[in-house]
């Protein structure tokens, strides 16, 4: 039974239906504290769908997600308080400054406002702190979205293509962020087409779980 509790996040036989298409079926995964999982697979294989299922945005057709042995379906709000999700969209408001955006996410997630300064520093956003979202480039917006992960301070990070639009220096900062997060016992699940190095991460090729085409 001791080994059971070492697994923080576990998913069993996840099956996802989008419209009338079965995106994947029978996905199993398990991740312990400090663990990292890298999702790979061709376009349309279901990397984003799997991350959205794990975040609770999409209800799986079948299967179950457990957090420390407890099914998350029983207490969605407690599970949401454990995860931070980075999707394709950056959630940066054109009329709000970078500092205001991060302050808002800190208040919304119950994180300490003091973390805003640390998050700005970790992604080298201090020079942009008073710049409005409308004036940021795509890569800069992505960095603000990554800073949101630090502000929220959640154990589980679900990252959908986190390196999109980032320059080499920012990718290095993200890799350092992920290493720190894991060293503190955090979990990371990231989808990528390459360009992101996560040491000793488990790989999962989502293409293997493609549903058989119905004849």
């Amino acid at each position, binding site marked *: 039974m001791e080994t059971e509790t070492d697994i923080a996040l576990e998913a069993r036989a996840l099956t996802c239906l989008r419209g009338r298409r079965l995106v994947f079926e029978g996905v199993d995964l398990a991740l312990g504290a400090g663990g990292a999982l890298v999702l790979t697979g061709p376009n349309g294989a279901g990397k984003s769908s799997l991350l959205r299922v794990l975040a609770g*945005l999409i209800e799986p057709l079948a299967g179950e997600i457990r957090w420390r042995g407890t099914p998350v379906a029983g207490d969605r709000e407690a599970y949401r308080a454990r995860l931070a999700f980075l*999707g394709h969209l950056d*959630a940066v408001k054109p009329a*709000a400054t970078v500092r205001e955006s991060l302050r*808002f996410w800190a*208040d*919304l*997630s119950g994180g300490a406002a003091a973390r805003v300064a640390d998050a700005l520093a970790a992604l080298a956003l201090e020079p942009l702190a008073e710049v409005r979202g409308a004036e940021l480039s795509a890569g800069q917006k992505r960095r603000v979205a990554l800073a949101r992960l630090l502000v929220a301070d959640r154990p589980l990070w679900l990252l959908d293509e986190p390196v999109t639009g980032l320059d080499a220096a920012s990718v290095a900062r993200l890799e350092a962020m992920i290493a720190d997060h894991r060293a503190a016992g955090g979990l990371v699940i990231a989808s990528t087409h390459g360009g992101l190095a996560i040491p000793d991460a488990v790989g999962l090729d989502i293409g293997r779980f493609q549903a058989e085409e119905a004849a």
Partner: protein
Amino acid sequence: MTAFLALLKRDVLLALRQSTDLGMILGFFVIAAALFPFGVGPNPEVLARLAPGITWVLALLAVMLSLDRLFQGDYEDGTLEQLALSPMPLSMLVLAKALAHWLTACVPLIAVAPLIALMLNLPAAGYGVLIAGLALGTPSLSLIGAVGAALALGARKAGLLVAVLVLPLYIPVLVFGVTAVDAHLTQIATGPHFLYLGAILAAAIPLAPWAAAAAIRHSVS
């Protein structure tokens, strides 16, 4: 509660920064009212008879035009999916957004309404009841509108869809808002009309955020 207040504060702040939206809605309210003397003739008695109804109908239309900014921007830039992932119940966050919408769209309309009433020659005795009715009725418009705006997320021609969904649901508010003014001008008790407006609001506060939250969950899945 921190999350509720943080979202309320942010939405009000962003609406004030994008005040051209508000200016256009107030402009619509005033210009549309100015069309009626051209359409029905400048006879002061006719306009006075129509004034409460015209003011209320235009207020409904102006509120409806302002609904697209309630969720659409947050939906397009990904904020809405982050809100859906907040541990705070989504219906509470919808309530915060509807309150912010009321403060930044409906309160300015209420402030401009006496000008419209003056243009349409509303008898002096009717102003107080008109404003009181708008103050009690427009929060329901924001809440019911939030359901329509949430249901229309992701649809093509969302603005038209919102109009078709929301305008029929606005009829009870319109009826009791207008009859309150008419009752007062004909010296009948206005109390029952206000009680009905209050009852609509009392039903909308728990039901509308719950329905809008369900529609938002569907739109971000």
